[in-house]
């Protein structure tokens, strides 16, 4: 298990505009990739340097200089993962770290799976047995995050497009396979010519996805912000206010759920993906219950929770429940309807919160702002707070979103590669059964973007679309 053959890469610092960023690579061959992208001042290659040394130079992609960096070279076995490791310390900033990560991928690294660095460290004996559980938790939670962000934040109709491409692929593969399994009933002679045109089209579509979607980013990057609160606290009006003023609406997409709308907003340079949720209260109504559960689910994957309280109504059990739920989250509390008679005060909110979460009272001064969405008061204060939190590094994107994006891009490129192989097979006169191999590879790769696995898809397609004999 030691020294995996492939090299994994990921951004290992929070992606925020401040401070420095670190992009890390691990695995046999990491140094080799390092040689390709690192240019030292004296022209010395990384591979000729000693282990556990730091080097000043540049990260380049061919002729392009991406950033001025410090590179740490650490060779197996005394590294975090136990494998050869290259850590690139670059200037912080969203753009730079992403470019560096993508460059590493371009030169042969693979985007790391959730928790993979830690997993490797464990499997290579760098962490002791008692930590196995923690490693497992990390993998599970990060995977859940990646899945959620990938599925709920797939931009616009991309999921649909990918599904359409997959449908087309599986249909034609099933046809070929039916003909092979039942050659006396179904003939596939001359099918290559027809398939050639279809694969060309599919390839165009994938390449279109790759080039037009914001430089290959097919999920929305931004701070995942969830607005919660009791019914009628003013959550939707808050969203409307945030969207309505001078801010640009970048896109609007319906999420996986019809009742939860997600908006992309840029506030003074800070990108937010804002999710409006159903009001949280104890309810017997089944439909409402579903909405409430979804709101709770959404909160789990949020980078930031905005908790809206109607200050004209006393706090109750439901508020306490929400306060409990936001315990582990970065959050902002808004006392809405400040234009009416305020029954709930900042002090009351704070003392309630500390009563529920006593451990927090010593560490945090919790941010509470009075606003009125109706009169548009306090909105500028909210914006300023958000901006400060972001630039102070208190608020950051979850790295998983970036790495998920890079994974998706890699998946699209790999699917395109597979389809090109189909074309090569057709052009070089290979028999039809060879086409299915690469068609199914493309199908599987695309499925990894939409979170679907193959299972019995092909067999089901064969039986449902084509009439087998006997």
């Amino acid at each position, binding site marked *: *298990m030691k020294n995996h053959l492939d090299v994994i890469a990921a951004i290992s610092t929070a992606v925020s505009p401040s401070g420095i960023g670190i992009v890390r690579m691990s695995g046999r061959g990491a140094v080799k990739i390092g040689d390709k992208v690192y240019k030292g001042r004296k022209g010395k290659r990384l591979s000729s340097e000693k282990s556990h040394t730091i080097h000043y130079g540049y990260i380049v992609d061919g002729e392009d200089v991406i950033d001025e960096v410090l590179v740490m070279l650490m060779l197996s076995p005394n590294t975090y993962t136990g494998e050869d490791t290259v850590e690139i310390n670059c200037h912080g900033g969203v753009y730079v770290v992403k470019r560096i990560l993508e460059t590493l991928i371009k030169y042969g690294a693979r985007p790391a*799976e*959730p*928790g*993979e660095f830690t*997993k490797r460290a*464990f*499997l290579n004996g760098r962490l002791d*047995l008692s930590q*196995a*559980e923690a*490693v*497992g*938790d990390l*993998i*599970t939670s990060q*995977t*859940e995050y990646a899945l959620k962000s990938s599925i709920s934040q797939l931009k616009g109709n991309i999921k649909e497009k990918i599904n359409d491409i997959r449908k087309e692929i599986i249909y034609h593969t099933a046809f070929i*396979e039916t003909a*092979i*399994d*039942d*050659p*006396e*009933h179904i003939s*596939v*002679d001359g099918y290559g010519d027809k398939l050639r045109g279809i694969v060309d089209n599919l390839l165009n579509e994938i390449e279109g996805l790759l080039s037009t979607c914001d430089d290959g980013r097919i999920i929305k990057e931004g701070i995942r912000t969830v607005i919660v609160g009791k019914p009628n606290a003013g959550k939707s009006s808050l969203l409307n206010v945030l969207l309505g003023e001078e801010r640009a609406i970048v896109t609007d997409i319906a999420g996986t759920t019809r009742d939860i709308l997600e908006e992309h907003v840029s506030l003074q340079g800070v990108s937010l993906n804002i999710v409006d949720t159903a009001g949280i209260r104890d309810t017997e109504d089944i439909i409402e219950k579903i909405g409430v559960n979804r709101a709770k689910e959404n909160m789990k994957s949020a980078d930031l929770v905005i908790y809206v309280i109607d200050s004209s109504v006393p706090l109750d059990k439901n508020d306490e429940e929400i306060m409990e739920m936001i315990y582990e989250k970065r959050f902002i509390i808004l006392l809405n309807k400040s234009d009416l008679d305020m029954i709930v005060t900042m002090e009351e909110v704070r003392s309630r919160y500390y009563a529920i979460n006593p451990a927090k009272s010593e560490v945090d001064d919790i941010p509470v702002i009075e606003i009125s969405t109706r009169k548009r008061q306090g909105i500028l204060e909210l914006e300023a707070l958000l901006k400060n939190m972001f630039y102070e590094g208190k608020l950051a994107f979850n790295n998983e979103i970036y790495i998920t994006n890079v994974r998706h891009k890699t998946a699209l490129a790999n699917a395109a590669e597979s389809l090109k192989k189909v074309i090569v097979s057709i052009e*070089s*006169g*290979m*028999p*039809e*059964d*060879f086409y*299915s*191999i690469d068609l199914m590879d493309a199908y599987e790769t695309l499925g990894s973007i939409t979170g679907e*696995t193959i*299972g*019995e898809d*092909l*067999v089901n397609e*064969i*039986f*449902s679309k084509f*009439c*087998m*004999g*006997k």
Partner: protein
Amino acid sequence: MKYSVNSVWENKDQYDIAVIGAGHAGCEAALAAARLGFRTVIFTVSVDSIALMPCNPNIGGSSKGHLVREVDALGGEMGKVIDRTFIQSKMLNKSKGPAVHSLRAQADKACYSRTMRQVLENQENLEIKQTEVVKILIENTHVTGLQILSGGIFRVKAIVLCTGTYLNARCVYGEVSNNTGPNGLQAANYLTESLKELGIRMYRFKTGTPARIDKRSVDFSKMEEQHGDDRIMPFSFTTDPGEVQIDQVSCWLTYTNERTHEIIRKNLDRSPLFSGMIEGTGPRYCPSIEDKVVKFADKNRHQVFIEPEGIETNEMYIGGMSSSLPEDVQYAMYRTVPGLENVKIVRNAYAIEYDCIDARQLKPSLEFRNIEGLFSGGQFNGSSGYEEAAAQGLIAGINAARKLQNRESIVLDRSEAYIGVLIDDLVTKESHEPYRMMTSRAEYRLLLRQDNADQRLTKKGYEVGLISRERYERLLLKEKLIEKEIERVKHTHVGNSVQMQRLLEQYGSAPLVSGTSLAELIRRPELSYEILKTIDRDRPEFIEELSDEVSEQVNISIKYEGYINRQKKQVEQFKKLEEKKIPENINYDDVKSLRIEAVQKLKEYRPVSIGQASRISGVSPADLSVLMVYLGG
């Protein structure tokens, strides 16, 4: 007939292994066990129905032909028997890649059964016993014996269940329902209860067969004749190809039409399937004609193959028109088909329902997870087809024997054999219909070809003890010749001589501008190793009996090298996960970060490796990571 527990008596004969059922699975299981030196007894409800082919009159076909060759390479019997009893043979998919070439032979059914029965009768260590087994006896989760209908108890150390479609079997057509097995044979009506008492989960499956008709009533002038191949390939690697070049009989092709479909549609309400009289789940790949007409309503005709059931009979099989419609409707619909206007039905079509198991209760060795010494194979495991049955029977028989030898089970993985794919699918995937082998189920099919089954499996068969030393050494010689010749071909340089250019022109291949290697020329789609013989002066003479086989292997290995290497790489990845074993006593509740769904699934299936776990639906890649971390410490 009544089974009474009051008349218990003990059979004092000594046996090690009992096989229940003498169909295609049972025969292979019993032969393997006996040949490995164990005193074996095989039970059948009727000695006359040993190795019966109650449905289609052929062996092999796409991917099933692969199974037969694999059974043969491991030392099974099916290939040898069909080589002696076929009446027509065809290599299917010849225009496609070598991975999907598949042999299919029309069998003389009666002759096939008789021949297999003789093999059983003459096998040392093997006894045949006609009776119904009613009970499996166990003590502390170990098999100790079985009880037969008369109350007799046979003590054995292992049992292989191969009951096929006989358990609580019921044959249905129209309003008629008979509690019999196939062909009106006696069903086995007690064993299911005993299995349920042992905690075994049962399914009820359904399948069907078309009518058999009198050849004299068919007008062949209205049909297309279907010939066998000019040059016949045998199934068994031990059969001399020279001995199978027989005079073949023909099959005939005709079609249904709108009138046929109209009759079917009008009478659907009389079908037991549509009226709900049949509850069992039928196979999607082998639909009855009424299924096809309903499901593919836009098709205005379906193919119908008229196939002989043997040489010494006038009965013919109507391939493509299985049905459970009432007999009068059967007459009407068959008589709309060109050539069948005056057809006389000998045996009508029917559907059959039977008990089988949820095979996820089995280990990949085909032993029940919770009952030591109890193995099973064939349709009882929820598969369909003679070939699928034979393959499982062979593996179950071998593993029952190995259990008594205290040796590790033989488990073929998905990269080694179609048999591996078949068994892995059966024991890992949820299925609600009889399982049929298909080439699309084999992800590494470029490596799992019918032409190299011997290279893949003979060594295993030799180690098990079912393949002779002589046969194994022949394989080693063949492999050496292939390897040497591939090297030579890769390093043989050919120039653009006049003779060469003429040959290329003859096959429509682009002329050579400069020299190249022989291997490069073989890779051209229009050329082959064989074609280039005339310009290949240094080609060695292989020993006569291996010549064709070596040539074929060299040709395929060179021509498809790129694709083959790619699949080999994928197999390496696959093997890594297969080799990560999960201990049998693992407690999944202790693996904290697994999702609840994954814990439930893993507890239910108890996969033997991370690889097998990865194929269970409901177990995600993240769960596998967590599991690997848990095991990796």
